[in-house]
């Protein structure tokens, strides 16, 4: 009996010990897991900046090279975090009020970040070399209150990529107007430009999904070429302008000719396509793509330099060939006490040396059109095609207004356009009217409706 009791006691002790070990390891795991994202250790080191960039592993290597040169030059260390799903991660970090010191991300997100109070205001004069950045670039970082909330880092504008070999084979000229573009698209789709005897080519590539606002991003250039404004600035506020005659004309043209017109003008499944799964141009079965110049390196590898040409966008009925310009800004996270180091990093990133490093190298370049006006993209890269992009940015480009929070505006525009293009029998006018009301609601939510 006593033996049995001792045995039970021993077993219990053993169990207790095991339980204690498990509890402690559980606790440790818990704390370790909690601690890993807090960045508290890094935050304590004044000589280390935590820098987030929205980049994939390929472009992250270019950033690494840039930051290594910066550390070598200044002694300030950079804890570089390339983040793919940037916004999701940033919102998580914002919810625990611990932001990275410096962030490099899209220009159009500035309004959204500022609305949430994530950014520190910036005095351009505090960044050495600020006078080498053009007024056009600086103007794009002004917030609603007139203060700057970002430093321009890279700019780009859309251009038209055309299969040169197909176009020449069919004996057609470079497209200069929407009509030329449509005729070329129809020829690419119907006249067997690859000569394999099958009807398996398409005129142009369209990422037409509403997911993440893609169709608004791609379609914006067409809207501007048609004389449309999504929002119109009025005094200190904005008014939605998607119920205009120009909007009706332009969206109707797009719907009739691209989405609901002849089969093959755009690639199949365009209405659910985002850029990541819209690979028809580099796959060699579509002839045109209006997109950003970051694709040049991909197309060079997939198709070969000689197969395609980079052209300015054709003009629309409004007589201009304006295209969407966007790019990246450098943002300073709110409430970090490393202003000096942050300014030193920004000054390096916009300097000719920093920009050149980010434009060249073996990996995907992270600066497309330099913001530093002393540099010429085509010369730095020894590639004349880049001058087409630089010229498009400088002379024929429009940016999404980033002072209001443009994220809901872009998403609602995309939702409406995607619906209009999907239902071929629908009434464009009522679709645009509904969009206009939704945009008015978005502006009202931001206290910006005039």
């Amino acid at each position, binding site marked *: 009996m006593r033996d049995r009791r001792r045995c039970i006691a021993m077993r*219990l002790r053993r*169990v*207790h010990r095991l*339980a*204690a070990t*498990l*509890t402690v*390891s*559980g*606790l440790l*795991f*818990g704390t370790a*897991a*909690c601690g890993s994202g807090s960045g508290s250790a890094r935050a304590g080191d004044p000589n280390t900046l935590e820098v987030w960039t929205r980049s994939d592993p390929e472009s992250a290597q270019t950033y690494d090279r840039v930051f290594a040169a910066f550390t070598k030059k200044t002694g300030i260390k950079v804890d570089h975090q390339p983040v793919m799903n940037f*916004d*999701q991660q940033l*919102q998580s970090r*914002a*919810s625990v*009020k611990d932001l990275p010191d410096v962030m490099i991300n899209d220009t159009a997100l500035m309004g*959204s970040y500022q*609305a*949430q*109070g*994530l950014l520190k205001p910036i005095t351009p004069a505090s960044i050495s070399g600020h006078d080498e950045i053009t007024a056009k670039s600086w103007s794009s970082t002004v917030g609603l209150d007139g203060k700057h909330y970002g430093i321009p880092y890279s700019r780009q504008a859309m251009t038209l990529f055309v299969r040169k070999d197909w176009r020449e084979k069919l004996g057609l000229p470079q497209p200069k107007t929407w009509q030329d573009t449509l005729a070329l698209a129809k020829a690419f789709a119907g006249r067997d430009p690859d000569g394999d005897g099958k009807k*398996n080519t398409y005129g142009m590539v369209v990422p037409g*999904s*509403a*997911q*993440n*606002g893609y169709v608004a991003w791609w379609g914006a250039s067409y809207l501007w070429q048609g004389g449309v404004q999504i929002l119109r600035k009025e005094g200190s506020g904005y008014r939605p302008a998607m119920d205009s005659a120009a909007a009706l004309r332009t969206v109707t043209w797009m719907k009739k000719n691209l989405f609901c017109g002849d089969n093959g003008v755009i690639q*199949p*499944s*365009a*209405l*659910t396509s*985002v850029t990541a*799964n819209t690979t028809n141009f580099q796959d060699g079965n579509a002839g045109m793509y209006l997109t950003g110049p970051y694709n040049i390196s991909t197309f060079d590898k997939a198709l070969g330099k000689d197969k395609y040409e980079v052209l300015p966008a054709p003009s629309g009925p409004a007589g201009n060939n304006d295209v969407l310009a966007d790019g990246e800004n450098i943002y300073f996270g*709110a*409430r970090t006490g490393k202003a000096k180091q942050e300014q030193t990093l920004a000054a390096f990133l916009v300097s000719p040396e920093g920009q050149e490093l980010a434009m060249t190298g073996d990996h995907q370049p992270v600066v497309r059109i330099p913001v530093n006006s002393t540099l010429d993209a085509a010369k730095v890269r020894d590639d004349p095609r880049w001058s087409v992009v630089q010229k498009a940015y400088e002379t024929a480009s429009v940016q999404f207004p980033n002072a209001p*929070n443009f*994220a*809901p505006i872009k*998403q609602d525009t995309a*939702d409406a356009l*995607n*619906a209009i293009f*999907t*239902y071929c029998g629908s009434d464009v006018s009522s679709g645009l009217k509904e969009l206009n009301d939704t945009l008015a609601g978005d502006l009202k939510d931001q206290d910006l409706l005039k």
Partner: protein
Amino acid sequence: MTATVTTPGPRRARFISKKAVLPWLFLAPGLLLALVFKFLPMGKGVWLSFFEVRPFLGDQWVGLDNYTRVLTDHRFQDAIGHTLVLGVGMSLGGILVGSALALLLEGQARSLKIIRTAVFLPVVTATAVVGEMWRLMYYPTSDGLINSGLGLLGLGPVPYLDNPDTALWATMAMGIWMLAPYNMVIILAGLAGVDRSLYEAAAMDGVSLWQRLRHITLPAIRPALGIVLTLAAIRGLRVFTEVYVLTGGGPAGSTDVWMTRAYTLGFTRNDIGGASAASVVLLCVTLLLTVTVNYLRKRGDVR
């Protein structure tokens, strides 16, 4: 006499208390992890749903505004409809196909094991990969796998995902393809417990196949079906990755489900308060549905 009665009392009490504490000690690590990674964030989500979230400018209390906004938004209302159609269709389809597969693939033969493993593959494949694969299969020209099959019959090609009338059904078909093998495994486990002698007795009585299924197999696998139904109901409501990868909610919002709307609200429009409210509504509905399904199952079992 008194001493003999009182002495074991405290001892036993001490022993019982130890016994009572022990399971909790074992559970502690798991509970702690669940608390930190599940229940605290969940509580925070519920809390945030009453605010306009602006971490650095101070969150603003808006009461039930976020809920009103989400519930009166016509896109969310459409999304409820799509979620229900998709959830019910995928659950029932998954159970029917899963049961059929289980009945077909029940047995000990080695070849059956290989086929069962092959059939189970969709479950262990990442949903994002499955989505991309089905996008290719649904490709709306004769190059697409399914359309090339239709072409042989002189039909098609059908734009499965680009037509708002077919996109939801196409998504459902992929969901059933993914769910059915999982259900099959649970139902197979249920089938393994069926008393073989009942089949033999039934065979001697000369009953039909349908009668055998109706009176022997179905009652025997009722508990397994109950589990499958509960899991399917929960999974059906929180469907996200399938839709996000395959259609992104489009075209024209025809496949938007509750979770894709909540995601867009939270991470495209940066409206964390609204997204939290939408998630809390989903949590409540899921809870309600789970409790109802369980209640009905138990009532069925008693009967």
